[in-house]
């Protein structure tokens, strides 16, 4: 690990000033960043600790809920309003990592966490995300955990977050602060696909920071489910995960929200499948059809072909749970 300077930020402004200089990085819970520094994947000159900024609040707004970027994953998952009005988010958070990690991890840090691709983590191996131009170790390598949607030859890594899958499904908005003030973007546009620049995970500029997310009110609370399929019952990243929210009236689906994790470089929202479900009766059959629609454009690699079967099965199961069929 390289030597670095540590600064505790007193204000949002001083944070923004600090990160405008090259080689400076924000540290929140540190559960991802410190690991990456230990492995030599990233080597900042300076860390700005933002955990003392007043961004931990979880407050109702006129049309929904605001969650500060520094709210802890554990706090959010157990917050009364979240549990009652946005259970999908609570479930997604609790499916992630371990209680110890969730006690440290923040909402902003969770959004910014980097892929768990083994080739990204091992600095002796090629990785376009870590070191553009070196190639992709996973392409011809062990890609069991890798993406089936939105891939490019340059990178087939997945975004590892569970929370983000929930927030993508819930139409959240990200609130970002920069030198020029605040801006807001839809959650689904925050993370990006690898394209020609797999080293860039998201649309946050280097001199910007996340200050929170807003979730609009919805009618999905009664019929929500987060289903995560993994290699062990806890403390493992998703092979495939699905966030499903349904607004059901008299057995008919009025609105649907669906997002998948473990399948793409970003939380993968299933817009077409959602559209299909609107107006359909609650039935395993329509769920299966929706799952088939969701799988259009999927492409497998040597070791992750199972996801082509597991993903639609997981979508169907998640919808069955959300709708109360099981």
């Amino acid at each position, binding site marked *: 690990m390289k030597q670095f300077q540590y600064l505790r930020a007193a204000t949002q402004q001083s944070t923004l000033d600090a990160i405008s200089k090259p080689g400076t990085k924000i540290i929140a819970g540190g559960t991802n960043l410190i690991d990456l520094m230990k492995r030599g994947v990233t080597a900042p000159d300076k860390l700005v600790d933002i955990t003392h900024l007043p961004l931990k609040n979880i407050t109702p707004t006129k049309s929904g809920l605001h969650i500060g970027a520094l709210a802890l994953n554990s706090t959010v998952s157990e917050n009364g309003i979240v549990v009652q009005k946005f259970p999908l988010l609570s479930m997604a958070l609790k499916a992630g990592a371990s209680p110890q990690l969730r006690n440290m991890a923040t909402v902003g840090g969770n959004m910014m966490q980097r892929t768990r691709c083994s080739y990204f983590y091992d600095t002796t191996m090629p990785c376009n995300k870590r070191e553009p131009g070196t190639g992709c170790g996973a392409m011809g*390598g062990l890609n069991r955990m890798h993406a089936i949607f939105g891939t490019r030859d340059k990178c087939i890594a997945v975004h590892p977050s569970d929370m983000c899958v929930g927030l993508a499904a819930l139409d959240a908005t990200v609130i970002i602060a920069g030198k020029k003030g605040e801006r807001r973007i839809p959650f689904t546009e925050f993370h990006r696909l690898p394209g020609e620049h797999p080293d860039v995970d998201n649309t946050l500029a280097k001199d910007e920071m996340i200050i929170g997310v807003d979730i609009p009110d919805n009618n999905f609370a009664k019929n929500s489910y987060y289903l995560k*399929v993994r290699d062990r019952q806890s403390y493992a990243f998703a092979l495939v995960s699905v966030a499903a929210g349904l607004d059901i009236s008299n057995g008919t689906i009025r609105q649907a929200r669906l997002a998948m994790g473990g399948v793409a470089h970003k939380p993968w929202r299933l817009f077409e499948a959602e559209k299909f479900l609107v107006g359909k009766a609650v039935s395993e059959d329509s769920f299966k059809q929706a799952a088939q629609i969701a799988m259009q454009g999927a492409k497998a690699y040597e070791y992750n072909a199972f996801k082509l079967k597991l993903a639609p099965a997981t979508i169907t199961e998640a919808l069955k749970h959300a709708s109360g069929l099981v």
Partner: protein
Amino acid sequence: MSTINKSMTDNKKQPSSSDGPSRVDGRLKVTGAAKYSAEFAVKGLVYGVLVGSTITKGKIKSIDIKKAEHAPGVLAVITHFNSPKVPGYQVATDPGKPAVKGPVKVFNDDQILYNGQPVALVIADTFERALFAASLVNAQYIAEKHITNLKDNLGKAVATHDDTEYKRGIVDAYKSAPIIVEQEYMLPSEVHNPMELHALIARWDAADKITVWDKTQGVKDTQSNIAKLFHIPVENVQVHSKFVGGAFGSALQVWPHEVAAIIGAKVVKRPVKLVLGRADMFTSVGYRPLTWQKIGIGATAEGRLVGITHHAVGQTSTYEDFAEGPTDISRSLYACPNVNSSNKILGLDVGSPTWMRGPGDATGAFALESALDELSYKLNIDPIELRLKNYAETDPESGKPFSGKNLKDAYKLGAEGIGWKNRKQEAGSVTRDGWLLGYGMSGGVFGADREPATVKATMLADGTLVLQTAVSDIGPGTGTAMVAIASETMGIPAHQIRFDLGDSLYPNAPQQGGSTITSSVGSAVYMACRDLKEKFQQLIGNGGEDKPNYAKILKQHNLTQLQVVTDSKAGAEVDKYAMYSWSVHFVSVLVNPATGVVKLNKVVCVADSGRIISPKTARSQVIGGAVMGIGMALMEEAIFDDRYGRLINNNLADYHVPVSADIPQIEAIFVNKPDININPIGAKGMGEIALIGMAAAVANAVYNATGKRIRNLPITPDKLVDWTALT
């Protein structure tokens, strides 16, 4: 003693005092007072960090150490260019003959034999400075083509040095049987990953005198190995290893990092502490070898075994011929007239494997017990019935009687415990809440040995009994069991007994491996106590009470203490009897038909391992073995990217071991009948059998639930999802 001990059968229930003594060192462990090897505040301590090779095979071209040497706090950077030679490494090889195989000689030459092999040791005044300086060492290599894949190179496997071929009766007799199962099995390489990292502190006390605080399963073996390597008298090597935070076989030998630290301490003339990182634990201290197996098994229509053919190819390194005996189990578990087997190894460009809990038999049991289960379905016979039909009343291999065998009791107890009567013979036929429910069972066996051991027993003036022997306790509760034996034999309460272990100054004891300690050291403790009691009897003459007041007697005779040193070893019984411990594992699982997720529903493990000395710690052993078996069945796998010869999951986030959420209720049941022929205490080992067979029980239950047989561990959801698409 012939009663069946079912008192502590539920792991959700708190064991009570009627279940025997609690861990004698439990308080020390949970309060942090127990000191492990890396935790000794030795005066003048400095810190070593190893730099590992990033290529898999080839030569070191150069190592630039200048930057590292000039980093703050650095005392030395040692490589093969500047390392003092280890005298024990200089084995003369006959010219023209191939080099003698053996452990990697650290900092000895420019050869790279596996990825991660130590190429430099950085020593600094703090750990952080050593770690930082290690990142500045720049090694350049001349890489050569490497091979790390077993499956593609099976044809290149060679015979192991011993016990390669076995033949009883007609070769491949199974082929002529009316009912045949013939299948291949893959068991991935598994890493021990004890919680405590391998660590040592090495301090030279004089030019030919050294003290090490080391994580080891055998202080005496470590002592003699270090003496041999550094050409110093054995008595000048002191090894301390009072507490070991798990090992499972990884601490049965002196590894390159231990030699490196000792070299380092010599160079800087200060005590050096070296703790392996978790990633190093995957490459530097062995693992269970990746093994391919093929089994052919044939039976009559009534279910009598006609023949078993068992072939195995295990992975080893290019520099050591390490071989397990995965095919051994097929010789002795069942009465079968015709058995033949071959056991081969394939040297790959990887670090050497080593013994890991249930070595050989855990691997072999997975194949044999999976095949037997498959056979039971072909025969449409209950798997327990099939086993009873082929029950071995005498040892099929030697023809000798067993020293003690109650396996039939074990089948019965386990079947009751799991509710075997609820099992349906038709696979995939039972659902519960949308999940498929299945039952499986499997057996395990492991040789029961008794090694020579010596115990010094001293009764002190205050009535404290001190027992000393150079055994290690890597976690099973050795001290607890020994105190229990002494307490019963001497008739004094446990709190008056101190059991000293883990120091090379104490009398000889075997390594803690192969499930031998209770049998070996336990017998020695028993005999030493008996001798000591006898000495007291002589003092007080005939007619003494059964529970004498030892302190009083010492005082009456003006003695400050009374001491015996007792040797104990096996006798003629080893030629008369075949000696084994057995286990039976019963499992019920739930499998999600859509996602292929397997959840354990319940586990019942029965051990037939003689008398149970310390019920609480024995129960912990069984539960630990079951958990390890669940890991073997469902998740453990060290994965190499063969293009680079490097592991892609050398950390505990990516290399999965079971977490609490994976573990169901586990019942541990003991047949608890003393084996009166093996040793004076009637106890046999149980550490290995707790694991052996467990993985097959899970795989068999998955089959019963789904009708899908997985022969390639671990059983992860992706392997079942193909099947789910069909349902």
